């Protein structure tokens, strides 16, 4: 962490030496970097950094206090994804968006509440005149891949039956040898213990609609909440300097089949980089378990040894899942 005066001294020197520095960072990147600072109106986290941005950002994201925060956020995101998708290092993408969302206070429920068209007509006109199509633009993110998952439950909705689910867990094939990460140890636990654990998870989670969410258990017994469309053969992706986890799918099944290897863990080989598609956000359960900062760093460090790298193409929708949960 660098203090603000130190950051300002460094940046001020850079800018006085080289005027073109102004073109290097989009307004979105500036908001991600400096938006932690305080101001009375959240929109000022964008407008208050406006003058530091390249001309294209200033032309498209105009200062307009009649817009809501959500509208400002969307034009910021859409401009960045169309014109600045290569401006950041791929391994930093997830943490950049995590910071952006935290700085602007953009949460998942915030986005769900504003299902307005992502770009207003005037905006998409501007985008088209810039030569960019208003969709299908992506930003590439790099991270490490873990998994696949070991077990995915039924959706945690009204029909969720704890004892049936517990039986299914016990009956599940290929029990891994797992350490105590929260979920009961399979070998030494009773059906009641599993039922109890699932009963806890089923309890309503404030601010989270769990009807389309399932419980995922990985091969080490760690638990996650994932979108119900996640399958057991999907993978978990981790990113440098970020606590965000994503569930992703390897689409090229035929590659895996032809490898002839039956062990699922070795489906993706160490030291290789794979391109996966994002399915959704995975949230570690229990929620808000304090994870000290070093854990993320440690994850990135240990996984460097025998890592399987992941490259994800994030479209605007996927980037929005990186909001505050």
């Amino acid at each position, binding site marked *: 962490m660098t*203090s603000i*005066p130190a950051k*300002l001294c460094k940046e*001020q020197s850079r800018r006085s030496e080289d005027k073109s520095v102004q073109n290097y960072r989009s307004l979105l990147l500036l908001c991600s970097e400096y938006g932690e600072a*305080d101001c009375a109106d959240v929109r*000022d986290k964008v*407008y208050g950094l406006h003058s530091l941005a390249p001309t294209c950002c*200033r032309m498209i994201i105009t200062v*307009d206090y009649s817009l809501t925060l959500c509208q400002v956020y969307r034009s910021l995101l859409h401009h960045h994804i169309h014109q600045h998708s290569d401006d950041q290092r791929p391994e930093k993408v997830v943490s950049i968006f995590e910071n952006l969302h935290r700085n602007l206070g953009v949460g998942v429920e915030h986005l769900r509440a504003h299902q307005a068209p992502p770009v207003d007509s005037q905006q998409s006109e501007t985008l088209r005149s810039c030569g960019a199509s208003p969709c299908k633009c992506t930003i590439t993110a790099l991270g490490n891949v873990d998994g696949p998952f070991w077990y995915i439950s039924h959706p945690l909705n009204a029909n969720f039956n704890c004892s049936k689910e517990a039986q299914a867990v016990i009956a599940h094939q290929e029990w891994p040898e797992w350490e105590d990460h929260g979920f009961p140890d399979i070998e030494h636990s009773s059906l009641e213990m599993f039922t109890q654990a699932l009963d806890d998870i089923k309890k309503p989670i404030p601010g989270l609609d769990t009807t389309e969410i399932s419980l995922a258990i990985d091969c080490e017994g760690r638990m996650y909440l994932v979108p119900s469309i996640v399958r057991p053969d999907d993978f978990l992706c981790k990113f440098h300097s970020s606590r965000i986890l994503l569930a992703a799918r390897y689409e090229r099944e035929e590659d895996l089949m032809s490898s002839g290897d039956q062990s699922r863990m070795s489906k993706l080989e160490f030291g290789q980089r794979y391109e996966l598609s994002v399915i959704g956000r995975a949230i570690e359960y229990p929620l808000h378990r304090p994870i000290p900062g070093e854990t993320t760093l440690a994850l990135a460090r240990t996984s460097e040894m025998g890592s399987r790298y992941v490259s994800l193409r994030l479209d605007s929708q996927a980037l929005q899942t990186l909001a505050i949960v």
Partner: protein
Amino acid sequence: MNTLGHTYLDVSLPENSDMPFYTPLAASDEIRLLYLEHGTPEQVIKCTIKNVKTDVSLRYMALSYMWGPIVTKTIELNGQQYAVRENLWHVLLRFRNMGRSIPFWIDAICINQDDESERNHQVSQMGAIYSEAMCVLVWLGVGEAASSEAIDMLNQLGQDSPTSDDYSSEYEISILDELATPEGNQRLLAILSLCRQSYWTRLWIIQEILMAKDIIICSGTKTLEWESFKWIFNGLLIGVRQLFDPMTLLVEKRERSFCQ
């Protein structure tokens, strides 16, 4: 006079709304500037605002400060009672008797905050306003003892330090030697306190500083040039790191004994 002003304020001037003296900005290259009148400490602060066209010859200073708590004081603006927040009131008090009467650009007064379209336009012009100002005044507040001490020290260093060409390691060592004493520690703490003023936590100051041509930091009656302030991060911290790095100490010792 002052007491009367406050009473008047409480009754009828809660938000300075619809003040008649805001002449709409006629053209997109027009801004308002604030002209401070001289005065004695007991006199009410008097100032006028005028619409002016921006061009290269326009000389003004732009203020970078935090609005602070909603505690207001009364000033006289274009002959009318006007409420400003306490922090700004201190700025006006501090600078009203400055020798040359250079006008100021101050967001709270020079933008008609109640006119949304003017606010939209002026906020988008702030980069130009701050970069074209002859100097940006950074106001850290009325100044507490520690900040004053830090500013004195940094000014002293600025004067003493040789020009960058012959910036000798000998000079650096002399400063670091001094900082290792209990007195020096006190000074380090003073510098830390200067960097922890709540001014630095505000978002607006980022672009105000980064767009500026020239910056002067003010804390109470003390002033410090940005170049001297920067030394904290360019010289001091690098030096402190070396001071606590065993390898450097070893090399340094060997060099010294060699010289002797």
